[in-house]
């Protein structure tokens, strides 16, 4: 009986220690590399965080890094993947951007930022993404004020006449917007080749 009690006590101690060391601490620790995808459709993970400190050394917290990654996941799922899958324009993406960008994302930039106005999918759809690299800037007091998330996104889509390959080099800069971090600046370069691309031999098979 005594052995059983001792064993239970040791077990409880070990269990408590494991729980203590394994628990999170609410985001005060440095953001670390995670393998968890923030997209429901494609593997999209945080590749690393670089801290640019203008003053007091500071490290971007997991809470902000997580918020930015969640926004990127929504951008990819709703802005790049859903339009290809459904054939409909991107929806529910405006809230990811701050007020100053709203007019721009509804203008000519819409076709670059999102999968919009592209040939209809007739075959397979294979999206993929590189890990996201975040560069975050903190001010003299160590308060983070801006963060840029950069990654490449690729998609092979079966369309009339073959496959269209799309590569996007994406850089989204976030800033706190009365609480949540929103996209305040963007740089997106799109490269396409294959079927339905201007100048591509396979594009002639459109009719």
């Amino acid at each position, binding site marked *: 009986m005594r052995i059983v009690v001792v064993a239970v006590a040791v077990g409880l101690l070990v269990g408590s220690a494991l729980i203590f060391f394994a628990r999170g601490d609410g985001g005060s620790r440095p953001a670390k590399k995670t393998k968890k995808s923030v997209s429901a459709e494609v593997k999209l993970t945080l590749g690393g965080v*670089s801290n*640019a*400190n*203008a*003053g007091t050394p500071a490290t971007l917290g997991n809470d902000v890094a997580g918020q930015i990654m969640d926004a990127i996941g929504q951008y990819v799922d709703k802005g790049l993947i859903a339009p290809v899958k459904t054939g409909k324009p991107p929806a529910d993406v405006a809230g990811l*951007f*701050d*007020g*100053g*960008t709203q007019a*721009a*994302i509804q203008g*000519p*930039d819409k*076709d*670059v*930022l999102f999968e919009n*106005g*592209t*040939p*209809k999918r*007739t075959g397979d759809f294979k999206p993929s993404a590189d890990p996201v*690299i975040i*560069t*975050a*800037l*903190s*001010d*003299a007091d160590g308060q983070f*004020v*801006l*963060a*840029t998330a*950069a990654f490449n996104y690729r998609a092979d889509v079966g369309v*009339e006449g073959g496959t*269209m390959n799309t590569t996007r080099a994406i*850089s989204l*800069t976030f*800033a706190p917007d009365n609480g949540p971090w929103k996209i*305040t*600046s*963007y*740089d*997106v*370069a*799109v*490269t*396409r*080749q294959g079927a*339905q*691309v*201007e*100048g*591509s031999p396979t*594009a002639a098979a*459109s*009719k």
Partner: protein
Amino acid sequence: MTARPRTVLLTLIGPPLCGILVACLVIAGWLATGLPLARGETWFTIQKVPPVSGASFTSGQPDQVQFFLAVGNDSRDPNGVGLGDAIHVIAVNPGAKAASIIDIPRDTSVGGGGKINSILANAGLSAFTQTISNFVGVPIKFSMTTNFAGFTDMVDELGGIDINVQEPMHDVDSGADFDPGPQKLNGPGALAFSRDRHSFSAGDISRTVNQGYLLITALHNFQQQAVSPGGVLTALGNLGRHVQMENVSFQELYRLGRLVLTIDPANIKNVVIPTGGGSGTNLTPGAGIDSLFADFRDDGVLQSH
């Protein structure tokens, strides 16, 4: 064949024949306008997409002329602010994608109050900015200053500045030792380049022009490196560690910086103010200064200078 059998034949063959004709017309229409992929789907026209496209936008970028002040001070104390020896009022015109730098020699006498550079050391950056703003007649939105250690560390962290030296520069006092032609300046080299006044007949006037030239060259370096948005943040961190700034946030600097990176250095004029005397102390503002400031003030672009 009698009339009755012909009628029966037409009755039998007519409807299917009409159906075939209608079907042929529909198929022809489909072929002419694009085939719907499946039953129930909407008609569409296949549009080819461009092989390359891009979008770049920054929220809240200024759309009006921005005036700001960049000052190099002579403090050897890494935390100190000394005499304002390198004084540059910079204007950026977003619409014209152009900029101007007005260089003010450190020995310029403003309002009969002695050399302008002492105001920074004696009264601080705010008072110095106000003095320069009144002198030039432009609303200076924000200002920044750095000292010897800040400047050299900043340039070193940037990886140096590639510059084309215009004239021989060999000066023991500043440490400048450059032959004309392309040079890679590290932090101390850039400081020596900015401080050298003994290598030129025009002394401090040429030195002041060189400082503006260094600023434009640094911008050109940035543009050639195609600095990414993340790189801009890294550069701002570098700036913040080595420069004292007033009345500007990092978000404002980011927006302005992204704008400035789109300006062709050929569209940036670098002009030293006319002074009444040669190199020396208490230079009086020279003839034509009002015209220069008026040209600068209206839209930040120097059209006639």
